[in-house]
């Protein structure tokens, strides 16, 4: 039976020339995606819009928001949520999961090495100044042995998919990657808003993230502590990611503390409770290195706790993530990660990098300047999508300004070819249109690594835009990892 054309949400949808996350697969996987596509197509756009509106109201009232503070009041904003899910097949997920696990393992070995023997520098695989001269390299960490050799306990890997459908890593986030709360809350929202779309589908659950996190952080407790006291350290209610901190503490079942709740005495960390001081062994901290410990780093910090670094050095405290991981997720060091994987693991990288030119090298600089209009230029030290110039979409004036900046400080830039990011049907202004997406899976590492099935799918809501960051008008989608089809 055919339905009236007016009721089909995908009737005008055309993803060409990009890879589509809902319709792009061929072979045996095509049948799986077709089932979901049909269901979605069977819904009319008005229904989608109504449910989308309800979902956004719900996010607001549930306080799943980031907060912008003005002089007078606190303004809560929601991160735009698109109701059309992004799908990953079991095969695709296996590939990403093993690739991410491999990558995190190599990064942890790299961090151990550069804070101990620095063999990789002596072997000449990576320019020493790129590591030792990096602003995020922390000499205070030299010789410190974090439990299980784990520095990056929580990692977010930004992955994109090119026109051919191949996954590529765009960036590693090994400091304090955010966004995982949206993964779980988006799922809860979808389960309420679209039970008909999910019915009968085997989608991998995401709601045990907090439990897994506690398990993994318990594995890396200081030596001799069997039942560690774990806390989450937040800068407090004024931080724009405060919702995520609440979410994590709640899901982990641990206290959400601020700097003023903690104190270091005799190189041990305690929190202030109504029964007096109680020991703390593991801190999942969402405060940057610089502000974490005014005794060791930024003296002006009001957010941190004096003495945390001392406690960590004495082996009385595990910080997750460890201090000084920023050197491993640097955009220039990123270019060397495939080499790191071969060097430390003697394996080929499972996930490819995007081809990257380091302007700090002679060849990289020459290539970048010669092909400026075809490349994406990124400042090394920025995050959040700031300062990125997309050559093919930039005006001559923008390109000239970019060239001058690169020439003035080559080491601060890298360039990459423009990736035609894959697209996903997205509800925009009452129409379903293709919009570019990326993916950030979250890997949690104690003794070993566990990867949350799926991750955060970010979507660039502006037509044609390739920048998915929320600060640049991006939204999020629920990510469905389908279970292995019964054979």
């Amino acid at each position, binding site marked *: 039976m055919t339905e009236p054309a007016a009721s089909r949400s995908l009737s005008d949808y055309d993803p060409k020339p990009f890879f589509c996350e809902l319709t792009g697969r061929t072979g045996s996987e095509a049948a799986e995606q077709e089932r979901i596509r049909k269901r979605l197509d069977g819904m009319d756009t008005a229904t989608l819009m109504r449910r989308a509106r309800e979902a956004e109201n719900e996010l607001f009232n549930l*306080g799943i928001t980031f907060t912008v503070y003005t002089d007078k009041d606190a303004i809560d904003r929601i991160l735009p949520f698109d109701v059309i899910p992004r799908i990953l097949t079991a095969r695709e997920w296996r590939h990403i999961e093993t690739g991410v696990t491999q990558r995190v393992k190599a990064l942890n070995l790299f961090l151990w090495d550069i804070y101990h023997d620095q063999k990789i520098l002596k072997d000449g695989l990576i320019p020493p100044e790129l590591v030792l001269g990096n602003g995020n390299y922390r000499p205070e960490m030299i010789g410190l042995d974090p439990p299980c050799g784990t520095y990056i306990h929580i990692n977010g890997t930004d992955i994109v998919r090119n026109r051919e459908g191949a996954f590529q890593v765009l960036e590693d986030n090994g400091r304090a990657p955010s966004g995982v709360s949206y993964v779980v809350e988006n799922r809860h929202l979808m389960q309420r808003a679209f039970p008909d779309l999910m019915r009968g589908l085997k989608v991998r659950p995401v709601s045990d993230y907090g439990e897994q996190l506690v398990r993994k952080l318990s594995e890396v407790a200081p030596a001799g502590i069997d039942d560690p006291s774990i806390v989450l350290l937040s800068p407090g209610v004024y931080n724009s990611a*405060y919702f995520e901190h609440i979410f994590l503490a709640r899901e982990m079942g641990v206290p959400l503390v*601020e700097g003023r709740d903690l104190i270091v005495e005799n190189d041990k960390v305690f929190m*202030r409770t*109504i*029964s007096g001081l109680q020991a703390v062994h593991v801190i999942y901290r969402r405060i940057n290195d610089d502000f974490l410990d005014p005794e060791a780093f930024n003296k002006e910090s009001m957010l941190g706790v004096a003495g945390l670094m001392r406690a960590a050095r004495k082996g009385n405290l595990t910080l997750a993530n460890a201090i000084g991981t920023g050197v491993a997720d640097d955009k220039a060091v990123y270019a060397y990660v495939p080499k790191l994987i071969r060097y430390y693991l003697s394996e080929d990288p499972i996930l490819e990098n995007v081809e990257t030119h380091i302007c700090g090298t002679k060849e990289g600089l020459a290539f970048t300047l010669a092909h400026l209009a075809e490349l994406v230029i990124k400042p090394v030290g920025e995050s959040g999508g700031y300062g990125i110039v997309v050559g093919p979409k930039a005006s001559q004036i923008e390109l000239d300004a970019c060239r001058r900046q690169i020439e003035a400080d080559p080491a601060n830039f890298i360039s990459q070819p423009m990736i035609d990011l894959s697209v996903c049907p997205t509800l925009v202004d009452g129409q379903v249109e293709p919009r570019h997406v990326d993916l950030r899976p979250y890997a949690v590492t104690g003794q070993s690594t566990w990867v949350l099935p799926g991750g955060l799918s970010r979507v660039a809501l502006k037509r044609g835009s390739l920048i998915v960051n929320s600060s640049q008008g991006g939204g999020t989608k629920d990510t469905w990892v389908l279970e292995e089809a019964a054979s």
Partner: protein
Amino acid sequence: MSLLSRYAEDLFWLARYIERASNLARIIEMHMAYDRGRDEDVSWAWLVALHSDQERFAKSYGDASFANVIRFYVADLGNSGSVRFSLRAARENARALRAVIPTEMWNHLNEFYNRFLIVTDSDLEPIRLWRTCGQIKDGCYAQIGVAESTLYRDEGWRFFRLGLMFERADQTSRLLDVKFAQLATGMEATAQAADATFWSLVLRSAAAYQAFLRLEHKGGDPNRVARFLLVNASHPRSVAYSVMQIQAMLHDLGSGYGHRQARFAQEKVEVLFELLQSAAQEPDLVTRLHEINDNIQRSLIGLTDELGQRFFGAAPPDPTPPPDEAPSQTQSQSQSST
């Protein structure tokens, strides 16, 4: 794992601010709904006097007209005693507690607050005001109900109950002082018949009118009304009931959870309780209400400081004696997130 001191304090103040908003809303609601026949333009200065806010009020408004007083107490964020300020403070405390309170509590408060944010000037006009205040009051009741239904019964629950009962004792005690506040602001002494109306209004403002009638069929003898609100053991808003609940919570913390420092507050509560018992013996209680209210207010301030020192980790406060007339206490600056 023991309760973070900051959580204890935030739970205490969350409940206090909710209870404060609900009391204020109910007083206004009842006066709008039942106090017919007064000239609206002259009769609201007493509310300012009742909260010892004369100075602060005069600074921003001057004339104690109906519209001004209502704005000051319902919508003015600059007034730390307003409904709006209280609800915002309650929400900020809840925000700091979100990792530990049930999501149901936060969701309800957040929705309630978001609804309150769209209150407009027309909602404060005489014709709509009682409904607006009724909705605020109901929202507060519901929040306390959600807490009752979902909040885990550990020490945190005790601090939530302590905050609730502190504020309730405070507010009911103040309510008994309305007469004094009215006379002090130049309202004329009322005739016998009008006096009965007045005391029934006081009862309604404490949600105690019906319960009182069941007990006292003959109606409102002022001394009996005052005694009921002061020492009745069964009405959930009487001062004595609130103080008994405070006692029970402190007992739980001290004996049940082994926080021996609770005994300092317990001793002070004993003194307060004796004060209530002896007040109940006064043959002409009504004439003593202003003095009794002062003593209760002083005692509650001392108790709050005691909790601050023994549980919330605050530095000992300055040993200055509390003022004769106490405006509503607010959360200390160091801890307040507003």
